[in-house]
């Protein structure tokens, strides 16, 4: 079973706020599923290369150019931003 401290640590890494109640629920739910994941311990993968791209595609390239959405397009994008100041996305103070 994952400890309360572990759940709080994961929640902070995941940037998800949790209440006391949530912590207990996650302890139960996550532990159950992680136990299920243990099934993979049975499999011997010595010498097996992990999958990168499933059909084996290698690097793909395109020219480093941006798409111009135009003024109208820019407006449409900025409409979705929760807080804007002078045409910029406003970020909360960090400290």
């Amino acid at each position: 079973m994952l400890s309360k401290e572990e759940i709080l640590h994961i929640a902070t890494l995941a940037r998800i706020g949790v209440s006391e109640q949530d912590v207990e629920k996650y302890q139960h739910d996550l532990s159950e599923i992680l136990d299920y994941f243990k099934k993979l311990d049975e499999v011997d993968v010595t010498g097996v290369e992990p999958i990168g791209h499933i059909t084996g595609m290698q690097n793909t390239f395109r020219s480093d150019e941006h798409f111009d959405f135009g003024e109208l397009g820019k407006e449409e994008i900025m409409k979705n931003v929760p807080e804007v100041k002078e045409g910029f996305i406003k970020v909360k103070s960090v400290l």
Partner: protein
Amino acid sequence: MLHVTCFMIRDLHQKLINKEITSVQLTEQYFDVIEKNDAEIGAYLTLTKKLAMQQAQFVDEKIAKGEEIDLIEGIPCAIKDNICVDGVRTTAASKILDNYIAPYDATVIRKLKECGAVILGKTNLDEFAMGSSTENSAYKITKNPVDTSRVAGGSSGGSVASVAAGQAVWSLGTDTGGSIRQPASFCGVVGLKPTYGRVSRSGAIAMASSLDQIGPIAKRVEDVAIILSRISGQDLLDATSAKSSDKKYEDYLTGDISGKVIGVPKEYVESLEGEIKNIFEKSLEKFRTLGAKIETISLPHSEYALPTYYIIMTSEVSSNLAKFDGIKFGMRSDDNVDSDINENALPKKLLETYLDTRKIGFGDEVKRRIMLGTYALSAGYYDAYYLKAQKVRALIRRDFENAFKTVDFIYSPTAPEVAFKIGEKSADPLKMYLSDIFTITANLAGVPAISFPIGAIATDGKELPVGGQLMGKWFDEEGMLNCAHTYEINTKK
């Protein structure tokens, strides 16, 4: 006027060019059906009437001028709400995107618009496509049109139900572990997951990037083939997309599968019982009479597919959903409501905004998967979980490579069950995950797969559909579609 909801794409195309009906009339009829039955079914989240009528009028003008139109031109469809349509609200059925208006078209939408498709609206799904029943939508539950006390399946439950309920001729869904095929099986329609890389995902809201594919849903195999021809192809905006082929998949539906070898994995069918087993065996018999050879095969790593899938999927989910932070777009938690998370005073700082926004904005299953994936990727656990899973995945792919040395297709039921009752599994995530047991391997191995109706089980006075699933070799959609098509035309009246 013609009652149109029973026709297929080719029939409707003929009626449009013969001027038996206009695209505007056709579109209006579909909106009428939606108005009549969607309060009960709950397939749509947003209707795009203005856009649809504009598209329909444009097509009608072309027809009036005697211009040639594409097969799908002027024909109404529905789009899963995790695929961006320019200027249209796109929520992924999450509160965190409640007010998000897509500022561009997904590549598949651009292609469909170029072909003149008429988009009726955006359909419901499990939040961010995470679920197998469409009960995880933050907005509503989509019900199975065959029996509204049962789930439509998921996560593309809205897209599938819209087709099954006659609210759209065809629709687009996304499939990460069976999200097109399992609901198609539950609702008695056809659903296709193409080969990984066949269709660009640019503009689809990513769930697990090494598994996600976009695919079509319709009432007939030919219709999904017609749609696939129009949405596939390489795209600079999706670096994983494969080289284009200019195949018209509908041209490969010869109705002849004599000499083809169909492999039945013993690991899948061993546990089948009851009516599903009978229906499945009858369908095997049918394939035999159509000239195919049936062989029992083994996919020895099948029992590891589900844990492998859930490790890879949740890890990629935790990474893909990091962008929903309340800063750049989407919902943000109220600055003036303090949460009990940090002791900090108002106004909230950056970290508290993240924590609160994601706590409020995401539903339970989404948070559970982000937490799992974060754990699996965290320092000290990466090798044991994600890396290990990607190695087991290589073994699963090897199973398929070996099988396809001797067989052309792999065949099983799509799901080990028929549509279950609403609420029956929602309390137990592990039990819900087992619903995907036959479908996830196609995503892990990257092969194409299709679900199509093979029978029905009478339950509570309803005929609950059962789907069969064919998996094909990488990039052999045409062979697989022809096999399903051949079955269909020899069984459907």
